[in-house]
């Protein structure tokens, strides 16, 4: 950081000022002119928090996708289907057993298993033909979507998370000051904060895994140069299978987490697949840090679009993608 400040003093100053303004925006009471310009503080702060927490969810979903691509160059377009299947499986298990956590665990394991099976039975035999692998994933997603529709129909399902995860909590951020002088604090759903915490936790765990374990080192080596990795005597197929397991498992896990926040229905698979695509295109394919940055950016863009320009808000995220592609095609944190 000190080197950054030394080398890019101007930009460091800019970032500092922007950061200060930002913090003031959040913690101070808004004066009249600001309210007239931006609308209410409550809207702004809520949207900001929504954006960050949604970004967390998108990171959970996209991290698996980018991991699989980074190592195996496999654009897994069935990733959305894995998300949805994980959500459905988690729902059934949670419903049958009464424990949301069990549903979460089973979803992770089941989808991880499906990932291993896919890799070992199908993708291993297509090594090198990336386009063909991608087409296979498209075929799988078409079939999976239709079969899930057949089994669970078009009804929407809602999870029942444990009580202590539900409800709203007060944050130490002032919304308005009433005429009596008492401050009204912003209320925010606990569950969304949980999602953010989980995302951060998973992100940290992934970082530790990739950067501090031997297996992680092998994976990073493989991302850089696959042939070298196999030349150095590592059982590449085992590593691939493991990575696919983690990537798929993360999708299933995210399915339960996201499904609890936003319910599950057909169509969610396409939605989260697209979100993952945009997040990794913006952040850079193969980079977990890139996925985090991309997810944050996209989450914020989506929520601010929804709150302030609902008509075209949906197109905003795609616009960001196009801009990033035009300016830096490999993504913000992408290599080469």
């Amino acid at each position, binding site marked *: 950081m000190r080197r950054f400040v030394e080398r890019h003093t101007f930009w460091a100053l800019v970032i500092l000022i922007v950061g200060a303004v930002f913090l003031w925006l959040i913690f101070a009471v808004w004066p009249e002119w600001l309210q007239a310009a931006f*609308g*209410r503080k*409550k*809207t702004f702060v*809520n*949207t900001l928090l*929504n954006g960050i927490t*949604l970004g967390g969810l998108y990171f959970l979903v996209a991290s698996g996708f980018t991991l699989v691509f980074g190592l195996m160059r496999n654009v897994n377009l069935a990733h959305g289907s894995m998300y949805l299947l994980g959500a459905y499986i988690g729902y059934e298990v949670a419903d049958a057993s009464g424990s949301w956590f069990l549903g979460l665990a089973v979803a992770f394991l089941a989808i991880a298993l499906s990932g291993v099976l896919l890799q070992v039975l199908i993708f291993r035999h297509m090594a090198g033909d990336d386009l063909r692998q991608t087409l296979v994933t498209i075929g799988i997603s078409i079939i999976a979507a239709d079969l899930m*529709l057949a089994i669970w*129909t*078009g*009804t*929407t399902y*809602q999870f*029942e998370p444990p009580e202590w995860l*539900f*409800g*709203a909590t007060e944050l130490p951020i002032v919304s308005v000051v009433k005429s009596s002088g008492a401050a009204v604090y912003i*209320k925010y*759903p606990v*569950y*969304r904060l949980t999602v953010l915490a989980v995302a951060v936790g998973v992100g940290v765990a992934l970082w530790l895994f990739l950067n501090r374990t031997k297996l992680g080192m092998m994976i990073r080596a493989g991302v850089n140069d696959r042939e070298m990795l196999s030349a150095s005597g590592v059982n590449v197929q085992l590593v691939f299978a493991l990575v696919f397991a983690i990537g798929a498992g993360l999708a299933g896990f995210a399915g339960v987490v996201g499904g609890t*926040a*936003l*319910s599950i*229905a*057909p*169509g969610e698979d396409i*939605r989260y697949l697209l979100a993952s695509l945009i997040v990794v295109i913006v952040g850079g394919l193969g980079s977990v840090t890139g996925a985090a940055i991309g997810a944050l950016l996209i989450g914020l863009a989506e*929520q601010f679009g*929804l*709150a302030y320009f*609902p*008509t075209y*808000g*949906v197109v905003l995220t795609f616009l960001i993608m196009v801009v990033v592609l035009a300016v830096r095609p490999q993504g913000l944190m992408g290599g080469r």
Partner: protein
Amino acid sequence: MLGHLKRTLAAAAIISLAAPAMAQDGTIKMGALATLEGAFTVLGEDSMRGVELALEEFNYEAGGKKIELITGSSDASPDSAIRATRKLVEQDGVQVLIGPLSGSEGLAVKDYAKTQPDVTFLNGTSAAQDTTLRNPADNFFRFSTDGAQWMAGLGEYVYNEKGYRKVAVLAEDYSFPYTQVFGFLEPFCRLGGTAPQDARFWVPIGNKDYSSVIAALPDDVDAIYVALGGADAVNFLTQYEQAGGELPLVGGSITVDQTVLGSKGRTRDFVIGTPSAGPISDTWDNPGWADFVAAYQKQFPDGFPSPSLFAHGYYINTKAALLALNEVDGDLSDGGKKFREALSSLEFETPTGKVSLDERRQAIADIFLTEVIEGPDGGLLNKTIKVVPQVNQTLGVPYEDFLAYGQVGRENPSCE
């Protein structure tokens, strides 16, 4: 390879040589079109149950001839509805077609109907206004009410009885909610209520995340009119409760129906007292309705607990076709002209009251005003407060004045 091509084409030639199926003399071919694929399959299936219920009532016979039912399927997009309709009419040779299910499909089928003057088209449940209000087709008959009619009585009730004067609107950004909002706001605003443009929130279709919208809702309105569909309504209510919202709600026709009230999750006590309106009411205690529900439950033990408005709409339109066929003794030899005349002047009793048609072949029927109450077992139900009798498409407003409102949209009526 071209040998293969030859073979495929030979096969196609053989199939195509089979001329379109012609109806034999003692049979009338009836087609039924609903969304039997994709996420709306469950609704389409209930629609077919409505058709079969009506046919069963008449013993699959009308005007002395047997009725042969042919099914067509769409995926709720207008393009697929047109292709399915074209197949039913031009390939399968149906003379009467019942359907489609959704509003935008209905507009497309109406346009197609104009190109097939000798075939008679009856609606399924499509509820777009313009299907019959603007440029109607002479051979398209709608015995079910449209989305604006479904809201009849609610605007007046909310203004007079509940005393609301200013409402916010939360609905999905497409034509069916536009129609519902129109039907609610038109009388409400005529009486003097307001719904400012910046208090109208049109969320994109499929949006499940209402937290930002909830945070943007104004505090200075009396109520929020929410026209969201079943699953989205469930999401909204949950998130609204979580955010500590306290404004009373007014519901669209599918916002506080049984699927929403009965869904698993926290008991939504704050929903009690929400008024709504629609073409049917599950709890109407009327012998005609009770008989209909009993017949549905008997014929379809694996159907819904109570017939949905899809089964209801398709049932009424099919019954109308069969009654008119009886009237003309099944004679469709003149291209169905006599049959259509009979349909135009048809008036009959349905499980939800009397139905007749106006001069654009649109239904005039009764609408049900409901309110959410707590049932005897602690669950939530819709109680029928009032039956609004014989609502027409222009909601009692003269036709020219009604047309002057323009097509339904985000800002219609303006009502500031």
